[in-house]
């Protein structure tokens, strides 16, 4: 009996945008003097409508969809960056939101100091970070360069550090964007292998993907989002086909 890790019930997310809203005190004053007071016209933009999903512990799920379909929005709703317009998101364990690697990285500080900063931003505590430290340092292959200010790092080095931190902090649920596994070919392979290993340890992994090798080799379940709904939820091969059909239309 698989325990649910994330339960999404009747989730709807609508973004409100006020066109011609006064964005300055000057405009507000002018309006007030003229005796009218308006907040602009409301435009509503529904990204997700009545989504129902249950994700179980230990699953490895690939989320696919065209640009702007709502994949990132869904991840942000799960991780708590956005709040639902209606419906609920129930999360039963700690989440490592890896929507962007190296969030909060500060150029003037060394790689070492940034490990603590980034870990704290991702929601980890002092002890968890200290425990993970030797693994992070080893995996990043940065060696002595870890003491350098990261403004001197190449983009590849930044990715290696960012991914290293994300991969070794102990969170039962990981939300990632496939775009993360970058860097040179050698490191890409290392990243994907690490994600696979994390999954085998029992973590729940949700990966935003665009149908690459990663999905086919690792994911057991594929969810395709289109038109504010989940249009497919099942086996990977068919999911990828559905996705291809949608984007190529």
């Amino acid at each position, binding site marked *: 009996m698989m325990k649910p890790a994330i339960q999404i019930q009747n989730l709807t997310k609508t*973004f*409100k945008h006020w066109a011609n809203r*006064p*964005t*300055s*005190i*000057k405009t*507000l004053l002018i309006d007030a003097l003229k005796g009218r007071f308006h907040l602009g016209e409301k435009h509503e933009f529904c990204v997700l409508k009545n989504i129902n999903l249950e994700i179980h512990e230990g699953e490895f799920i690939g989320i696919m969809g065209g640009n702007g379909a709502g994949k990132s929005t869904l991840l*942000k709703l799960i*991780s*708590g*960056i*956005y*709040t639902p317009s209606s419906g609920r998101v129930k999360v039963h364990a700690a989440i490592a*939101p890896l*929507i*962007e690697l190296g*969030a*909060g990285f*500060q150029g*003037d*500080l060394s790689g070492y*100091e940034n490990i*603590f*900063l980034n870990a*704290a*931003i*991702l*929601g*980890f*505590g*002092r002890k968890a*970070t200290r425990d993970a430290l030797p693994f992070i340092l080893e995996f990043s292959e940065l060696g002595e360069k870890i003491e350098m200010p990261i403004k001197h790092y190449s983009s590849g080095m930044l990715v290696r550090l960012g991914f290293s931190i994300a991969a070794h902090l102990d969170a039962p649920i990981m939300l990632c964007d496939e775009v993360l596994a970058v860097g040179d070919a050698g490191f890409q392979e290392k990243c994907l292998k690490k994600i696979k290993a994390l999954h085998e340890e029992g973590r729940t992994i949700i990966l935003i993907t665009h149908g690459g090798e990663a999905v086919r080799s690792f994911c057991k379940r594929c969810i395709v989002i289109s038109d504010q709904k989940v249009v497919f939820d099942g086996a990977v091969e068919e999911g990828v086909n559905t996705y291809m059909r949608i984007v190529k239309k």
Partner: protein
Amino acid sequence: MTFQELSRVLQPFGLDPFCVGKKFLIFNLVSKNLKVKYRKSALGALWTLLVPIAMALVYYFVFKVILKVQLPHYLAFIVTGIFIWNFVAMTLLEGMESIVGNWGLLSKVPIPTQIFPYVGALTNLVNLAISFPILIAVSLLSGVPLGPSLILIPFLFINLFLITYSLSLTFAIVFVYLRDLRHIMGIIIQLWFYATPVIYNESMIPPKYTWILYLNPYSALIISFHRILVDGKWPNPSEIITIAMWSFITFFFSLMIQKFLGQQLIEKI
């Protein structure tokens, strides 16, 4: 009431102005700010002190030497006021832009928006605390009879922090909606400076207008700091009550702003 007890009371209302449970993150962000400030240049650490000292010296020269203002221990008077006002002005201005300015991070990682004004106020408070010995030194050198009233300094600092943080959080939230506040705030802070008895003494104001002075949340605070660090005396109980009252008002106001304008800010930037 400690900050912890206060936070527990606010929790059921969905308000978390002190970012409970985020100690490690707050510590890291404050250290990051301090490291960046102090490492950037050789004069980095000194600069935080040099600017207010230079300002104080200029005011001293203009008001004491040129205009021949007669106030005892004027150097200590000016230095105290300028250091405290510097904390206020910097926290309000930096704090106002701190939520919008960190939009990148806020849209990628789930952290409470109020953490940025909070960390900003804490960073500046640390800087003020570090420069506090200088205030004491200037007072002693000016011959101020510092006494047991110094024991009230922590109380004053706590209220200074509370009022300033509440205001900077309010501005930060309102700034999300009204961006031209950026241009206006500079002028407001300037005028506010003159509305606070920093370079002048409250006794220089005709008695029938003194109440106007107290419409400024910082007046009673600055006056109390002066009373302790420049006169070596105890502040008037009425000043203390005024300070506590302003702390309550500004804090409560910031809670209302948080509740009605400050929810789901990330979607509104």
